[in-house]
């Protein structure tokens, strides 16, 4: 009965689309990253590891992009988790209009990044932008910066915008985790005379670990693929200071030098396959245990 009632073609439709438009291009990409493929000539030659040598050579800018991507990923993981956890704890307290606050804090997550980028270009504007005007109004004129064009500040500003947009999402996941912790643990701890810090350290953190794993995995996968935030705010500038892997991929695409671009994606593909595999095993663990 199983065979007849659960036919394979039910899976096949989704599977074929997934194979043709996601898996096959990636596999082709691995092969083509060993060639001098470009948009100008039809013939491609096998050139061995040259593209990868280009990516990992110190004369080029690619290592810088990889470094930025890693810096971005690590700092957004830390910032979003810490702030998200703080907010989740705060919203979980007995405050008024709890649900309203949750809805408002989550809101940035649903606004398109392209739009967020445009709005923050205005907010960061050195002459008339909201931040610098506010700083001047409260008498901190010396703190004003060229947020998006100063080499010192551009990448930090990008990270700040991304944290602004993404923290509400992390908060909501952690909040769900917090709400699933039974009150009786805290009551028992109170009877034993535990301080707030001890309760957080010995009850909240360990029981929140599954939720924290999930948010870290999500932030990690998101951070490594980051493109839109950088593209709309600085597009890699000033110079190449804020370039990340995917803005470099996009400029290779525009230039037509597909070989190097494909090699870049292949590097990412290998990293993500390993991380993705680990993540999925972590997240669907209960299925193997039970």
């Amino acid at each position: 009965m199983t065979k007849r009632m659960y036919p394979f073609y039910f899976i096949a439709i989704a599977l074929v689309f997934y194979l043709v438009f996601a898996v096959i291009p990636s596999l082709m990409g691995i092969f083509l990253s060993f060639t001098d493929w470009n948009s100008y000539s039809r013939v491609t030659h096998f050139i061995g590891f040259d593209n990868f040598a280009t990516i990992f050579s110190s004369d080029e800018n690619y290592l810088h992009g990889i470094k930025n991507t890693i810096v971005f990923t690590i700092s957004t993981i830390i910032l979003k988790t810490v702030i998200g956890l703080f907010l989740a704890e705060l919203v979980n307290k007995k405050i008024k209009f709890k649900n309203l606050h949750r809805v408002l804090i989550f809101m940035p997550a649903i606004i398109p990044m392209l739009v967020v980028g445009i709005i923050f270009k205005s907010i960061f504007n050195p002459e008339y932008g909201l931040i610098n005007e506010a700083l001047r109004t409260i008498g901190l004129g010396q703190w004003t910066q060229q947020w998006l064009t100063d080499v010192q500040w551009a990448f930090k500003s990008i990270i700040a915008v991304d944290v602004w947009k993404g923290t509400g999402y992390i908060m909501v996941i952690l909040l769900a985790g917090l709400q699933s912790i039974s009150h009786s643990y805290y009551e028992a701890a109170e009877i034993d005379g535990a301080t707030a810090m001890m309760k957080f350290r010995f009850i909240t953190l360990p029981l929140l670990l599954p939720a924290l794993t999930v948010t870290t995995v999500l932030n990690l996968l998101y951070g490594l693929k980051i493109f839109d935030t950088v593209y709309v705010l600085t597009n890699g500038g000033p110079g190449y200071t804020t370039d990340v892997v995917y803005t470099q991929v996009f400029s290779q695409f525009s230039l037509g030098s597909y070989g190097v671009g494909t090699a870049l994606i292949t590097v990412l593909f290998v990293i993500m396959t390993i991380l993705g595999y680990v993540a999925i095993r972590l997240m669907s663990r209960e299925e193997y245990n039970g």
Partner: protein
Amino acid sequence: MIKSIVIKSLIQNITVWIISLIAVIPVLLIFINAVKTVSESSSMNFALPRRIQFENFTTVIEKGKLSHSFLNSLMYSSISSFVCIFISAMAAFVLVRNRTRLNRFLYLFIIMGIALPLNYFTLIDVMKWTELLNTRAGIIVLYMVTQIPFSVFIIYGFIGSLPKELDEAGVIDGCGPKRLFFSVIFPMLQPAVVTVFILSFLNTWNEFVLPLYYLNSAQKWPMTLAVYNFFGQFQQSWNLVSADILLTILPIVIIYLLGQRFIIAGMTNGSVKG
């Protein structure tokens, strides 16, 4: 004692309000500046307009060809989300109910797609072979494919909680696989389907990278790209840019406010299990 509790709760309430304000300030900024004159909006701030300029919206709809891109976005997001849910639910159904070695592998293989990056370069070749390059159908197919892994993941978890006796009852009543799925199982999936639909609709509505790579005619652009292009042309008129942005995000803000229960449930679903 009581006094310190009152002060503590006051501080908590104020902190929460400040944070909520930080979260919505950029959106409020857009709302206020969308109805100002050009000179009033030259410095984007919270000063109220002297007279509310509703004509900004008509100007924007005309100059930004908004109705066109609105229809494009609506078409891309709704068709791709709709088809994606159907084929993902069908796949998830069989993957849950018939757990052979192969199917377990296929499930992991499909949800790996949540992590994997698309290869934009080789995808061009595939789009050329399938004659989808630079077409509306092509973008719809790509959006659908990008949403499949996540949809399968969510619906798979949900079908797992439906009792298998349902299927057996269906079989006894003489259902074939298609009848069983479409008249018995699919209606039961409603909560998961609503969540997945809203999420994939929002994701595709906000997406702009695929059209950036694969659509070169402005006629076919979705709203996000149209608004970005508009910003390029009218950088000096922040009032018009704001009005344009406001019209772009209005549909999703409304969907969000109406469906926030489903959205938040869906985004935390599968991730946190008590």
